[in-house]
């Protein structure tokens, strides 16, 4: 591949930023890379790996400190306008005008790029056909679901025919169904000959690309065909069965803490383990007892974690310390929801949902965008009155219950919701006092949590300026100050990278072992594996409830014996939607 045939050629590109706090961040530390034309290339890596910076440099929005960068054969540092005329870039938060309709947004971007009317007559039908937004032409963009907004953003970037498309995390906050649709569009574009570079923190997405570039801390860790990268983990992957009575997540947490193990995640009631080396594996043991293990084929994610582990070392394991591995679920019901209904005008957001959660359980609410998860959550936390039905949290309805009942629960909202202007310490002090902690007990509790969540070094930093992952930690720390019995977590891991999510779940496992009941909503279907039981909601209705194994069994067909959690989820939601359509017709 010569340089002129490449979509992008980077040679020793460097870029540093200075934060408000004066801290110097090396976003790209000498990146050299060639991306071929006509291919789908994924940039993967944790938060702060430099993915976004690389895309912004390629689109000529930022100038590198040093090194050279050619995009579609043009030096983007010297001729950014020429490059921008020929490529399209969709940033993480695409600038849609929420009050304008779908059609008006599209027209606006066509006007901005000077697309002639004749061309529009050709392009519009194709875009509407591709995105299936044709039915919603008149709907204001602000009223679209997260997935549809992303599709509209993509359509707006495609009003003219670019030679190269740059997509920055297009599927963050998008549910599995919309995610799949979005990817189908991208695959079709590539098939039609477009070059696409997409950054993502979903590893399954990277696995389906032609090439993957793994980044970490501004450097490239590995590059190649996903199956080649996956092959590097050959012989390292096992499915390990937990001893009787131990939840898979507890075993996962224990195994993740062992020195020779690079990664561990729960999967179908067992634990998927990646060893650091494939050489002569000794049998798996826990507390002197050997565990039943089965060697399995590696996935892309296993290889990613293996590569990553070699760099990041052991610093990531703190959150998994002190996990004993016992289940602490007992039969007492702490949360009970019966026939819950919530209407907004004519729209039924929650439609006769019932479920129970036992003390010490980790319970998951799953569903696509707009399924009613957050609405159910708000009603449980007493933030929204129910239209009908009953709900009890620790025996009380929190909407009317006194301060004492609320003392027993912790709540972490979907969006970071602490005081951004106040420092980490001030936030923690406020919430500690809010829950009645005073004097030395307050000091000790704050100190302990700051240590546990590694927030010490940020004590004096306004919380709004914390790096992404640490905001989430602070929010969780603030919710745990008063040692709540019940913890509500609303999409706590949205936008978090694979490593941050493992750390997060390590903490949740630890809490559940201490008898804390945890209720979570999530977009990441594999996270359902950490739950004792889950409920799947769509359009406000309860579609399925049970253990992760039960839910998988729902979706099993003769053709597909062991579907992933995500496939099971999509199958269940689609089956219901087909049924509704037939019923409605």
């Amino acid at each position, binding site marked *: 591949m010569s340089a002129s045939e490449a979509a992008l050629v980077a040679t020793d590109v460097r870029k540093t930023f200075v934060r408000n706090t004066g801290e110097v961040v090396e976003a790209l530390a000498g990146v050299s890379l060639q991306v071929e034309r006509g291919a789908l290339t994924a940039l993967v890596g944790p938060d702060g790996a430099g993915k976004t910076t690389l895309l912004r440099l390629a689109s000529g929005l930022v100038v590198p400190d040093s090194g050279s960068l050619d995009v579609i054969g043009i030096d983007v540092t010297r001729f950014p306008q020429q490059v921008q005329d020929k490529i399209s870039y969709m940033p993480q938060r695409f600038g849609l005008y929420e009050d304008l309709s779908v059609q008006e947004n599209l027209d606006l971007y066509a006007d901005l790029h000077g697309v002639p009317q004749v061309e529009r007559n050709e392009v519009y039908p194709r875009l509407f056909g591709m995105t299936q937004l044709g039915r919603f032409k008149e709907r204001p963009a602000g009223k679209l679901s997260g997935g549809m907004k992303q599709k509209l953003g993509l359509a707006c970037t495609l009003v003219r025919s670019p030679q190269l498309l740059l997509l920055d995390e297009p599927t963050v906050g998008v549910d599995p169904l919309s995610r799949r649709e979005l990817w189908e569009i991208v695959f079709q574009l590539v098939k039609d000959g477009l070059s696409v570079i997409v950054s993502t923190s979903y590893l399954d997405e990277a696995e389906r690309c032609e090439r993957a570039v793994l980044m970490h801390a501004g450097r490239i860790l590995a590059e190649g065909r996903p199956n080649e990268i996956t092959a590097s983990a050959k012989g390292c992957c096992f499915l390990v069965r937990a001893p009787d009575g131990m939840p898979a997540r507890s075993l996962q947490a224990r195994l993740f803490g062992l020195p020779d193990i690079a990664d561990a995640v729960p999967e179908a009631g067992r634990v998927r383990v990646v060893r650091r080396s494939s050489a002569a594996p000794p049998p798996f043991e826990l507390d002197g007892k050997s565990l039943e293990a089965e060697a399995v084929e590696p996935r892309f994610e296993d290889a990613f974690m293996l590569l990553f582990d070699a760099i990041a070392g052991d610093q990531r394991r703190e959150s998994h310390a002190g996990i004993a591995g016992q289940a602490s679920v007992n039969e007492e019901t702490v949360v009970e929801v019966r026939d819950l209904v919530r209407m907004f005008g004519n729209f039924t957001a929650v439609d006769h949902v019932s479920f129970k959660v036992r003390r010490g359980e980790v319970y998951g609410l799953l569903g696509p965008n707009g399924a009613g998860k957050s609405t159910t959550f708000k009603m449980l936390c007493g933030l929204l009155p129910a239209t009908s039905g009953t709900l009890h949290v620790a025996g009380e309805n929190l*909407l009317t219950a006194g301060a004492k009942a609320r003392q027993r629960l912790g709540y972490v909202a979907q969006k970071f919701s602490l005081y951004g202007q*106040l420092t980490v310490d001030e936030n923690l002090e406020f919430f500690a006092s809010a829950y009645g902690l005073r004097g030395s007990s307050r000091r000790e509790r704050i100190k302990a949590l700051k240590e546990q969540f590694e927030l010490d070094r940020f004590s004096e930093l306004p919380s709004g300026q914390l790096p992404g992952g640490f905001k989430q930690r602070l929010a969780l720390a603030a919710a745990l100050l008063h040692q709540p019995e019940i913890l509500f977590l609303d999409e706590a891991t949205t936008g978090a990278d694979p490593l941050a999510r493992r750390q997060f779940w390590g903490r949740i496992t630890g809490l559940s072992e201490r008898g804390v009941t945890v209720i979570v909503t999530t977009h990441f279907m594999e996270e359902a594996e950490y739950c004792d039981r889950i409920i799947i909601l769509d359009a406000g209705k309860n579609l399925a409830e049970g253990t992760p194994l039960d839910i998988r069994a729902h979706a099993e067909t003769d053709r597909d014996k062991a579907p992933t959690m995500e496939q099971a989820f999509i199958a269940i939601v689609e089956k219901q939607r087909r049924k509704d359509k037939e019923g409605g017709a």
Partner: protein
Amino acid sequence: MLASLLRILTLIHKELLVILKDPKSRASLVLPPILQCLIFGYAATYDLNTVPYALVDLDRSATSRELVSKLEGSGIFRRQTTLAQIGQAVTLLNTQKVVLVVVIERDFERQLAGGGKAAVQVIADGRNSNTSGVALGYANTIIADFANDWRSRQGLSGPVVEVTSRAWFNPQLETRWTMIPSLIGTITMMMTMMLTAMSVAREREEGTFDQLLVAPFTPTEIMIGKAVPSMIVGIVQSSAILIVALFWFQIPFAGSLATLSLGLALFLAAAIGFGLFLSSLASNMQQAMILCFVFLMPFMLLSGLMSPVDNMPEVLQYATVINPLKYAISITRRVYLEGAHLTEMLPDMLALVAIAAVTMPVSAWMFRHRLN
């Protein structure tokens, strides 16, 4: 009880931290009120000292010339031009070259001497009714004085009507004297209502309000935790304006400081109650801002700050019943300038108590029961 008190203190501490942490926002709470007060004190005045006018002297007598010199001798009227016909004056008025046209009719001297109707026509530009009204008043007084004076000098008897006007409490009828004390209420209401409404709306927008509702705070505690910091800010602001009035403009203070303070405290409670109520209707900062403006403008126009409430149509007078600023202006003016006693101000104060007693509990209830 103690736990509740401690929780309220926690909220107040947090609120003050958020408001006062940033030096810029700290300064923006005290400097603008003082600046506004200075600007209003100097700029917003109805007192006139140079009124450009055009003269049409059709009589051309010694008496008419004497009248003109009287007018100009007052130091208020400045002749822009002298015209031969009334018709020419129209353009001058239209183009705002002059505010008044003084027409001394033919036979002015003869009629005056004969005891008949001596006519002087004064035409004013009605587009700016305030300025014109004041200018007309001045002109009338001067002309009437002159006529009486002239007739008595000529030894003419007859019903010489002496119109004496004198203004009480503001002997020089300086606008500043009535304006500045009213500003104590006006400016602090603008600031505290916005501050309160925006602070709740910001918490809603950023999601921290949900955190408060999930924590063991009761709606009443949250309400008090929001009201007290705004109250403190309001007290500091009104004191600052009072100091400017007393020591910069040196407007004499006739009443009791205690009565004024009580009145202002009640007023702040009512204004903050309104701010809380508006914030409970708004779901984000933009809505809160618009709602504040929707209420602030009528509150200011219908407060008696610019024009007396008694002159308004009856329907609007009823509407002013819920306007906290109306009572505040009444209290500050009367206590400050007239030295009104506490008992005289009781009706106004009770009205403020009533407004606070309705808006505060309603907004506390709305915190939790607001739909969506």
